[in-house]
């Protein structure tokens, strides 16, 4: 069944690598964002008792990308979180590819469904 070029073992190694790199990159960007936030706003009061998320400017990928490109530290920290959420999504995408290479239609289909659900959540907030 298995395609000779890509064994289960190779898939497992690749999955492990994707997860590791994703977390490390996200953590590095998060540290940068956190230091930036503290450098700019260390003395501001931290009050998160009231939810203001409905009006958050960091609720769309476009705004996060634009803010991070402009050097806004809050947007950079939020970008780290987007990268982190994208890590398991990338893992599922890799699994889709692996099942296709192994000509396993059933599991390629299931993995594609999971991938589509995750992607719609990350890109559009689950189709709201």
């Amino acid at each position: 069944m298995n395609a000779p070029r890509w064994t289960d073992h190779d898939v497992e190694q690749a999955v492990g690598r994707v997860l590791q790199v994703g977390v490390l990159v996200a953590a590095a960007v998060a540290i940068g964002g956190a230091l930036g936030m503290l450098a700019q706003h260390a003395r501001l009061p931290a009050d998160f008792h009231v939810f203001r998320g409905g009006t958050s400017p960091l609720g769309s990928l476009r705004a996060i990308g634009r803010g991070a490109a402009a050097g806004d530290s809050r947007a950079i920290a939020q970008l780290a979180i987007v990268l982190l959420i994208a890590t398991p999504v990338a893992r599922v995408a890799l699994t889709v590819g692996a099942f296709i290479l192994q000509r396993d239609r059933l599991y390629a289909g299931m993995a594609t469904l999971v991938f589509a659900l995750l992607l719609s959540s990350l890109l559009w907030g689950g189709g709201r």
Partner: protein
Amino acid sequence: MSLLAFTAFVAVGSFGAGLLGSLTGLGGGMVVVPMLTVLFHVDLRYAIGASLVSVIATSSGAAAAYVREGYTNVRVGIFLEVATTTGALTGAAVAGFVPTSALAVLFGLVLLYTAFRSLQSVQEHTSTRPSHPWATRLRLDGTYPADGAMRPYSVQAVPTGFFLMFVAGVLSALLGIGSGAIKVLAMDRVMQLPFKVSTTTSNFMIGVTAAASAGVYLHRGYIDPAIATPVMLGVLLGALLGARILSRARVTWLRTIFTVVVCALAAEMLYKGISGAL
């Protein structure tokens, strides 16, 4: 409290949660939400968003190591991820309509269940009965390393396991947790997978489950970087250190402490939920 003090306290608290969660195997996510809401008076929605982010970080970090050891059953993982992601998106869709007090009570109950489970002894077992017909059709049976050889196991009760995974996904989204205890219940007790296969496959799925609802919450503004960043970094660092010192730590003793902490937090969440103080 200034942002500097808030960041420092939250990071240290999250570090402790990640350390204890990884040493005891209960996961740090269970503690993050009560810590943020009860100790730091953070709105429950921000707390859930931050906790989910930390759950993705720790499960991805740990799964990277486990997948390579050969315990994880990738087919079972993908099949059940269909249930957990659907559950998580359902949970995220209804989260806005569930009153905070009900969420707090639900959280308290799940905490108590997790503490109860952690006190039970673990039995390694393999089911040798013929697999459930669905398991055969889906080729879910597998092998795992035991006593220096690859030991085969069969898989039971697939529909019940699938349904429980959907519930695990709903709870993960509603409460901002990994739902590891329920995932292990479904695989270990219901589907009769070996315990080590259940825990590692659960970990493999937790990141995907949490990512499904985290995406929705990101767009809804539940994830604020000022809270989520110190939580994520703290829990991740704690979990990494925990994995390093696991072999040297006196786990039984730690497990007792952590169980007491979890029970206290459960009582606090139940009280706040019932009295409507959250």
